[in-house]
């Protein structure tokens, strides 16, 4: 294959290299030059983790063929400041805490740097516009914008450089701004995430995934792929030496599909090869014969007689049922002046952390199988993997690489097992970096839920009884479903003391993408129903929504839904603060409307617009012309 020669200036140094013609600038920087501060979050120009300067203009290096870099001057996050130093922008990001997981931060720093290079006087609206191509998922934009504003002032000389220094802490750290210890490594792009790590002789893995939601695997023929030049090994479920199966509660998920596939995107086979392109080409040579089975997609039908069975051990497709009982709901409803009844549904949600799943496995000289990955639960993974690969626990080691956002989505061991198997089969380090699409299709999601709700209330707003019945779609595997149902049940009726309740949360198997852990762990779905019911009850009773909540809120001495007596409670203060901060206009919800006095206050977010700089440009030019 002909090579592409690239002569360029990168971070002030001349570079003259041959590389593969099809490489993107991102690949050239990361793979050929080891400049891994530039990240790959999506590969489609959507996220901005790969922003770099080319001839002074900020571009997304995942959208640029490497050839375009030839003859160009390139500046990456590593080149902004001298080694060991930070620019005012990087120091400002450090100061304001604008780096949580840090995966988007090199790109953010680049975009912020570009914004001020393009217009050192850019106002906040223009700064927001110019950072519009970069996404953050956990730091939040407020701290980032704060950082850009501080840096703008320092660069312009209107703010003293001391503004970049850490605030002094007096007697207590509580309420003080303390800088994050790991921020310099993140704002400088030096922190190595799993995909940034390279080891000598390392293979690249790619995964063949199921196109079917539910199908029996009749045969897998890997011979042609295995015979390919550059392919080190192909692995399937047949390569698992121990007891296959992992999961946070029930070990129902094989490392790779065994006998059948249960959702679109489930791993069926994996290839480890000398390079990524060879591994991807080898996938297309693997022949899998499937026999499609009837699919189950509606959790409402999962427990019907005759519904397709997803796992043999659970003929009724029930993963878990959590019942909570307190008091006497029949009596509670009898006591009620009004009974409200409604249904609430929530949808599947993807975590969309900026760092797609990535990992490396190798076998060390003492035969310890080592897995490096941004796992949110390495000890549990280690125990499970030991069983799966039939090794004593001291021969399995997990190293947690920096997590570029997890939010619960990296609790499941969905690829670490494949890496371990390939490393054991080849005795070479093996790396797997998910694409964004692969992350979307293979990782767990927030449980879609349906809640049927009955609430009995007195005319004074007091809730006398609640029946809360939740059905959640667990998807193809159990993952964290059991824990999510427990949390949903515990939090079901909200921070309100209800003497009579009947709570049931159920989660069932379907052939949808598996559901798992996600921030709030089931609480969000339950609170959506409960808080909506509270508002609807307030409307029905002609009460202020804050008032009905105050009538029912848990106070010191209250008994929770699971009958724990509270020794402290702060909901009263929380509600006072929320009411004040929102400038709440008292009254029943029916008075809502455009005439409310609490709308459009000083902190209200304005509708988004674009183009402030267009009008400014034409005004500026008029002025400059007059001068000329």
């Amino acid at each position, binding site marked *: 294959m002909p090579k592409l020669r690239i002569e360029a200036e990168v971070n002030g140094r001349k570079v003259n290299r041959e590389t593969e013609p099809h490489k993107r600038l991102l690949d050239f920087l990361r793979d050929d030059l080891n400049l891994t501060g530039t990240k790959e979050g999506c590969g489609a120009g959507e996220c901005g983790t790969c922003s770099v300067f080319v001839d002074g203009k900020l571009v997304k290096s995942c959208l640029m063929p490497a050839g375009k870099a030839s003859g160009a001057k390139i500046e990456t996050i590593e080149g902004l400041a001298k080694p060991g130093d930070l620019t005012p922008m990087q120091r400002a990001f450090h100061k304001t805490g604008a780096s949580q997981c840090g995966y988007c931060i090199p790109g953010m720093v680049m975009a912020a740097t570009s914004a001020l290079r393009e217009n050192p006087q850019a106002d906040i609206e223009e700064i927001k516009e110019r950072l519009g191509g970069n996404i953050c998922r956990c730091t939040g934009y407020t701290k980032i914008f704060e950082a850009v504003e501080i840096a703008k002032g320092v660069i312009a000389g209107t703010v003293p450089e001391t503004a970049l220094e850490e605030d002094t802490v007096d007697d207590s750290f509580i309420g003080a701004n303390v800088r994050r210890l790991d921020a310099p490594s993140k704002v400088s792009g030096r922190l190595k995430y799993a995909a940034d790590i390279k080891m000598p002789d390392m293979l690249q893995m790619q995964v063949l995934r199921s196109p079917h939601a539910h199908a029996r695997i009749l045969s897998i023929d890997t011979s042609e792929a295995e015979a390919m030049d550059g392919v080190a090994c192909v692995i399937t479920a047949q390569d698992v030496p121990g007891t296959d199966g992992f999961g946070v509660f029930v070990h129902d998920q094989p490392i790779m599909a065994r006998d059948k596939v249960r959702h679109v995107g489930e791993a069926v086979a994996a290839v480890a090869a000398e390079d990524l392109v060879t591994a991807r080409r080898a996938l297309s040579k693997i022949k899998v014969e499937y026999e499609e089975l009837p699919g189950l997609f509606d959790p409402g039908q999962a427990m019907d007689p005759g519904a397709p069975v997803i796992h043999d051990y659970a003929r009724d497709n029930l993963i878990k049922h959590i019942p909570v009982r307190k008091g006497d709901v029949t009596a509670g409803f009898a006591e009620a002046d009004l009974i409200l009844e409604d249904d609430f549904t929530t949808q599947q949600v993807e975590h969309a952390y900026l760092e797609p799943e990535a990992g490396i496995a190798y076998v060390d000289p003492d035969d310890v199988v080592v897995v490096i990955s941004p796992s949110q639960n390495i000890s549990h993974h280690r125990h499970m993997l030991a069983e799966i690969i039939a090794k004593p626990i001291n021969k399995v080691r997990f190293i947690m690489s920096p997590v570029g956002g997890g939010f619960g989505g990296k609790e499941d061991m969905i690829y670490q097992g494949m890496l371990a198997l390939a490393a054991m089969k080849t005795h070479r380090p093996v790396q797997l970096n998910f*694409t964004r699409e692969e992350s979307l299709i293979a990782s767990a999601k927030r449980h879609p839920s349906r809640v049927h709700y009955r609430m009995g209330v007195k005319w004074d707003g007091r809730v006398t009884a609640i029946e809360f019945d939740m059905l959640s779609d667990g998807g193809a595997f159990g993952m964290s479903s059991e824990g999510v149902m427990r949390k949903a049940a515990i939090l079901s009726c909200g921070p309100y003391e209800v003497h009579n309740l009947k709570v049931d949360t159920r989660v069932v198997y379907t052939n949808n993408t598996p559901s798992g852990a996600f921030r709030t762990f089931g609480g969000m779905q339950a609170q959506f129903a409960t808080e909506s019911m509270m508002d609807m009850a307030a409307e029905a009773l002609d009460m202020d929504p804050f008032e009905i909540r105050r009538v029912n809120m848990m106070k010191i001495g209250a008994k929770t839904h699971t009958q724990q007596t509270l020794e402290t409670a702060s909901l009263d203060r929380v509600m006072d603060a929320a009411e004040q901060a929102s400038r709440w206009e008292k009254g029943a919800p029916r008075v809502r409307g455009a005439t409310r006095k609490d709308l459009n206050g000083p902190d209200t977010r304005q509708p988004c617009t674009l183009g402030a700089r267009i009008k400014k440009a034409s005004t500026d030019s008029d002025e400059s012309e007059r001068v000329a």
Partner: protein
Amino acid sequence: MLTYDVYHMPTSLEEALTLWANAAEGSRLVSGATDILPWAREGRAGDVHLPEMVDVTRIPDIDGYAFEKGRIRLGANTVYQDFLTDVTLMRSLPCMPYCAIWFADDQIREQASLTGNLVNASPVADGTPAVVALNGEIELARLDGGQIVRRRVPVVDFITGPGRTQIAQDEIATAVIVDACNGFGGSFQKVGLRRSLVISVACCAALVKTDRDGRVFEDVRLALGGVGPSPIRMIETENSLRGERISHALIEQVAQAAADRVGSRSRQEYRREVVVNFIRAALEDALTNQPDIDVKFEDQEEQINA
């Protein structure tokens, strides 16, 4: 994943045309490359292997722009960001800055060319309605017996359907020629799901010029994208406004009438509502953006009293 064997970067049009004429079947021309790389991914084209890529961005012949008899010839290497940074272009093509600001983001606009956007011929390409409103033509060049031969095709005819154009196998698009519309007010309306980086569900470009008093529509240009397989120039709407006294009532009336004539590939009811709102918003916005003229609506007082 996109792979290819050779990446060419010709430095003259002749060299590019020769390379292109001799390129192996399945090769692609590439300008900013911001569309082809996301295309060759899972869920769209998947893994794609192409024999050759011919990059046109190092050809000086198609850089920059030039005025010619009331028109502007935009070289094919004109990128979207140019419409936000070049004051001359901003003034002469008043709908383009608004189109550009809603197109992708600052970083992609540095790479993405207007010509590439037109040649890709997506039904929801942001550039198409704006160029159609500017009476745009596309210039296509090819080699004929060693000589460069050029032809021009109106953009409204050039795009024949989703991803389909009149470009011939051996041609390279070298320029877009548009009306210079100094003194017009411009507007671009777009619906999508996110502020930056969103592909339009539908979009609309408008150019408006009034008399000096701001009372009468002297010239109106309106075009829609995303409501059919190819861009739509709203000639009847333009005609029913030209020479008329400016009023909110008239704008509302033509917006309703326009929506009746617009078909759509999907979500018809939604798109109909969008079209009505687009035309109304685009006209009012373009009137506001007209430089140095204070527009007086005939029914202005009525509106305030109402």
